[in-house]
């Protein structure tokens, strides 16, 4: 079984890093987005099993996109991925429904371990 992943980051570099990390694993990258608004649209369109969501982005930031995604689907599985690891940002995202937080830069090993920890059973 493969899990469908949506990766959201304004950096093409980080979107490619996710794509490469998921290659030949049980995770399939089905869509990407470069800002929060596009993330919400992609979430509606592809209904992914898992979302990797950056915090600092243009147009709409990660926390705002997270709230909209959670209001669309309260059981959405979202992992925040950001270089910003302040208590305030992490706590706000976890309280808004994110399941995990990964601080950049991250290893492929950590990304896969975190995705596996929150996979729907």
């Amino acid at each position: 079984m493969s899990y469908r992943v949506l990766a959201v980051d304004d950096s093409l570099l980080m979107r490619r890093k996710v794509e490469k990390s998921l290659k030949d694993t049980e995770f399939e990258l089905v869509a990407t987005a470069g800002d929060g608004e596009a993330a919400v649209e992609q979430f509606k369109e592809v209904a992914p099993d898992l979302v990797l969501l950056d915090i600092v982005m243009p147009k709409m930031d990660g926390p705002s996109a997270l709230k909209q995604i959670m209001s669309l689907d309260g059981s959405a599985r979202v992992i925040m991925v950001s270089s910003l690891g302040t208590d305030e940002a992490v706590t706000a995202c976890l309280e808004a429904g994110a399941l995990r937080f990964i601080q950049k830069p991250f290893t492929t090993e950590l990304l896969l371990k975190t995705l596996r920890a929150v996979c729907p059973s």
Partner: protein
Amino acid sequence: MTGATTDAQTSEPQVSVQFLGQFLVSQGHVTRDELEAALDFQEENNLPLGALALSKGLLNERQLLIVHAQQMNTEDRFGEVAVRRGFLTRHQLDELLREQKEARILIGDALVRAGAVDADTLAVAVQQYRVVQERAQEQVDAELRALPDAHLISPAIQLTTRLLLRMCGLVAKVAAVSQDTRLAHFDYALWQEVEGTRPFTYALHLDGIDLLDLSEAVLYALDDETALPDEVDPMVLDVGKEFVNILVGHLCTWLDREGHRTTPLPPGSGEGNLDPPSCWEGAVRRINVRLVMPRTAMAVSILVKPGDETA
């Protein structure tokens, strides 16, 4: 080459933090080309610990990348992380460190070996360099400590030099600190504005060739094999901006623990010596910090709101 007269060659050497090779050039003992050749020779022969372990089959490439990635979030040295991860035994690490030290070629040795300078001249110059550097370092440290925004500037510079080393293998020293003055020319600026209780903008200024090198090193550190073009393009700028984003994210995390609320905005970039933007209306105070590396220089500028330091 010896004894050539340069502007910097006076009875009282110019006080400026620099690397030994740059000092030898400024004093006219060697030419810039001779220094470049010696630095190339050093790079070819002085293997970093990870590369040495890889060449001996003690680590594989995957383990090397894992250690490099973990190092970015810690002050720990390569060997310590590798031992902690169980990739190397303590005995293997000690042997590698001994071998690395014995084989290490210093820049002075490389210049003498190439005939650029004789050993006696070098010995005298090294002594002079140590005296000048001690004084220059004290001066820069005092300037940094005296800044009203030291709470922000010091961690910003520490994180910059740490990430340049961890992600790009670049050793950088703080060469000069100035306030509200124009920078020397750099081709590009990468910046990130930060809103919060004490808003600021962080900007990294560098030349195109260094931006290409930095981007290539960041890609390597992230295990990305994408080939970059020979000239700066949007892809290269994207990598550079992500480097600044990672740096500022970690800086904000540190400031948060010190009780400052911060919210970074998306990073930006521009060409030339433009003034980076700030997310507040009104006056801006700019602190410029010049960083030197063995081959090149970059600058960090921090924009703050005047008066915030006493808030």
